[in-house]
């Protein structure tokens, strides 16, 4: 044999298939941290990403919260954007044509304030060209009306997922809340209700106080914590969720470097998403992809899929 195939052997297979969505690598960008795609397109080749998960979309335009909406804290960021978005129609008309020009899977993150609103927006995206899957946000800490209220009660979580399932043929990825006692129960409920994968974690409920004024820093009073501070919490929850289900798990929370992503994969995730670190360095996803590939080579693995769930317990 020539030397070429040998070299090929050394380039690990980074591709994954999540819920029927083929990705050239397992590193996606997390909802709300990468806009809708065009915002970072000058700096990040979109084709280099495993998938783009767009900012949460509702059936109708939504204003979100008042300001201030973000505040930096040790190891991360607390945000209370409040799911501001232009609504499904404007997104489909004005942004989907841009995304369709790029060879990258697009996962649309959807939310509603009632089960009927979740059904409505899921149904609207069914059959929209260029949409590869739906991530169902049942875990946003920043709107009173819905979001986390669905994600922290097993019965309503199952109901939303089941009802959305009936409205779309697209791969369905419920996004789980970290704010529960037993994540395994929620992951299994999602699987039973027809989910094709689950993603976690969303931000952790948090609050920051200005001690001079003795007022909350955020207009919404409370928000969600993201960034490196939440990474070990997320790894533990991903590990528990992955043990509870057979569908793929997408791990996120505080990824800033390759080792953070590798931890999620070892804990049982089949793919990962970079969130807050996009703000720090828009090149983070690319660095993570390269770092995982290097790790596979140096650990004698041929495919990133070998890494998923490879955690060794005991001695």
């Amino acid at each position, binding site marked *: 044999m020539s030397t070429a195939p040998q070299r090929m052997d050394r380039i690990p297979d980074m591709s994954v298939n999540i819920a029927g969505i083929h990705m050239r690598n397992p590193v996606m960008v997390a909802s*709300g*941290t*990468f*806009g809708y795609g065009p*915002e*970072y397109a*000058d*700096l990040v080749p979109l084709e280099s990403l495993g998938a783009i998960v767009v*900012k949460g979309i509702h059936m109708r335009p939504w*204003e*979100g919260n*008042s*300001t*201030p*909406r*973000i*505040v*930096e804290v*040790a*190891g*991360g*960021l607390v*945000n209370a*954007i409040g799911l*501001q978005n232009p609504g499904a129609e404007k997104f489909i008309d004005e942004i989907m044509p841009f995304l369709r020009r790029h060879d990258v899977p697009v996962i649309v993150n959807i939310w509603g304030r009632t089960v009927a609103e979740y059904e409505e927006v899921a149904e609207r995206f069914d059959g929209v060209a260029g949409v590869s899957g739906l991530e169902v946000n049942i875990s946003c800490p920043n709107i009173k009306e819905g979001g986390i209220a669905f994600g922290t009660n097993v019965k309503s979580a199952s109901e939303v997922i089941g009802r959305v399932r009936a409205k779309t043929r697209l791969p369905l990825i419920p996004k789980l809340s970290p704010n529960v006692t037993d994540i395994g129960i929620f992951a299994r409920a999602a699987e039973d209700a027809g989910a094709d994968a689950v993603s976690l974690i969303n931000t952790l409920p948090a609050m920051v106080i200005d001690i001079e004024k003795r007022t909350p820093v955020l207009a919404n009073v409370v928000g969600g914590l993201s*960034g*490196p501070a939440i990474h070990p919490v997320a790894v533990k929850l991903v590990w528990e969720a992955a043990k509870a289900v057979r569908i793929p798990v997408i791990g996120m929370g505080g990824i*800033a470097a390759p080792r953070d992503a590798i931890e999620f994969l070892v804990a049982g995730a089949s793919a990962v998403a970079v969130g*807050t*670190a*996009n*703000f*720090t*360095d*828009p*090149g983070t996803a690319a660095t993570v992809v390269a770092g995982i590939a290097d790790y596979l080579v140096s650990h004698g693995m041929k495919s990133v899929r070998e890494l998923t769930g490879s955690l060794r317990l005991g001695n």
Partner: protein
Amino acid sequence: MEIEQASILRHQPCGGAYRELVLNAPAIAASVRPGQFLHLRIPRFEQAVLRRPFSVFRAEGEHISILYKTVGAGTMALTGVREGEVVNVMGPLGNGFPSSSPGSLPVLVAGGYGVAPLYLLARRMDMAGIIFIGAATSDDVLCVEDFAAFGWQIEIATEDGSRGARGLVTGPLDAWLASRRCPEQPEIFACGPDGMLRAVGERAIKAGHRAWLSMDRHMGCGVGACLGCVQRLKKADGSAYWGRVCRDGPVFDASQIVWNNG
């Protein structure tokens, strides 16, 4: 929009809590317009997840600089970086100031470090106008010699009266607006704290002058992705919406801005 690993050519005090940081950033230097800003990853402050935004102050050849004030942990860490070190810089970001309308007289109003983008604006204008510089105290009055060298008329106000008129910059501005005899229509360009921008904007609207205000908001991404930096604005039809200060701004027409989140 680029990300450059910019080496520090000079880093010097400019009086008071201000410093100028001069960077070698050819791609950004070549394309920057006045009023645009940079998003810096502050060296030795890598524990922070957010970058820090700074207006471009000077841009010549392959060099750009910022003029910054130490106000918190990030700017404090920045004071410690040395010549030869490298800074990760994103930019140029934002819309920048429009070019001045033909036949108008440029009137600049600067509060504190707000003078930074106005310096670049004046540098690139082919006519001289008048600049009002407002500050807390004389240490915060910057760039007077630069504007004088361009032939600009300069009016200064400090809150403690240590230099120029005592009080807010709107004092000398009001006096000038009331007594001016020039035939040209004033066009206002302002950068500074919200209170100053609001006062300047309200005066401009009342007098029927155009005013462009550059806003300062805490920023996340800097590119329009996170919706963290938004400002309430109104459309021509009167309806309100959230504009992104980082991408749709930081410069807005005063008549568009809804203060107090409307």
